[in-house]
């Protein structure tokens, strides 16, 4: 399977890079794994790198929003980083403003903000 997403723990934050060929099942699995790891490893934040994503639909948008909701309940901030312009336009057009998530230009920016928090 090409699109297996790995989760890295860096500075008490979980880094996940979502690949462009991610399937709906994989993203649901990811949601499950992340919820477990957030509570087990007492992380401060989850950083979702979506710079490889060229296309989003309402499903992916909703999963990201749910992930942010889950993280918040487990006391962690969710950062979405590296969103492409076309993806941002699409999400806005779909009315998915992702208010629960924090956003950053890149991983570096997200980690800087997490350190400050």
């Amino acid at each position, binding site marked *: 399977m090409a699109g297996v997403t790995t989760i890295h723990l860096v500075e008490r934050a979980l880094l996940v890079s979502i690949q462009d060929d991610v399937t709906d099942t994989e993203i649901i699995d990811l949601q499950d794994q992340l919820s477990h790891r957030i509570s087990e490893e007492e992380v401060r934040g989850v950083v979702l790198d979506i710079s490889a994503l060229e296309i989003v639909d309402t499903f992916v948008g909703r999963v990201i929003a749910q992930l942010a909701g889950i993280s918040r309940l487990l006391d962690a901030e969710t950062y*979405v*980083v*590296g*969103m*492409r*312009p076309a*993806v*941002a*336009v699409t*999400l*806005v*057009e779909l009315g998915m*403003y*992702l*208010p629960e998530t924090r*956003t*950053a*230009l*890149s991983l570096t*920016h*997200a980690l800087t903000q997490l350190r400050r928090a």
Partner: protein
Amino acid sequence: MPQTATTNILAILEADFNGIIEEWLGTQVSEGVKRSDLFSDSESRSQNAELLKAFSKGVRAGVVDAEFDLEDTAWEDLRAVLADVTKERVNRGVTPTEMATFVLALKSPLFSRLEAMLSDDPSSLIQEVMLVTRLVDAFAIYTNEVFIEERELIIERQREEMMELSTPVVELWDRVLTLPLIGTLDSARAQEVMENLLQTILERQAEVVILDITGVGTVDTQVAQHLLRAAAAVRLMGAECIISGISPMIAQTMVQLGIDVGTVSTRSSIRTALADALKTVGYVITKTRDH
């Protein structure tokens, strides 16, 4: 040899080609559509000669049993010449009336020659005149269509240029961008603005964007919607968006319309917005001396 419908016209065109051109030019002068101010005599003459040559070629091959269709391949020379001539004329500011009259003026030299040729056969004269009328009318209608197309192309090009001109994203400082919006913000422009802005954020890795609407005359619900969507997209990219230049009038309108800006920061002037933006990226503006 069977007499085809176009024999007489072709004979006329061949016998007195230059005479027809001179008379055509003459009619254009008397109708007041020659525009000697825009075209020199030799230019007009060569344009007319080319058109007439292509026209007779079309008549020779493209008219079958008094029927014809300017879209046929037989008429492609005429269409090509016409496209060139029309383009030239549009660029120099000729009006549609002048353009149509210019072509219709071809009728009178053809009619007078047909009359001289067929004076003893009134019924075929009428038929010939009707055919010529249909041909020249179709020619003129086609000309006007090309003319309008050409103008529309110009309008479209200018619209695109205006679009580009009106959405300059300026880098005010390291990681601080501003987009001064001027005029009205319709859907097409809002889209253009947003795409342009997001692309620049990516390229410059900007952290703060100031959308300045000082130059936007009125803000209705739709314009507000566009602005807020742009701000939301900017946030999704990971940058902060400040909308500046909200005049007291616009603030009142926005509240009366029930527009909720949510978490987007708004400032009355670009000056305060800039100070805030610089603070976000880690700079302060300090005064170095008193006046």
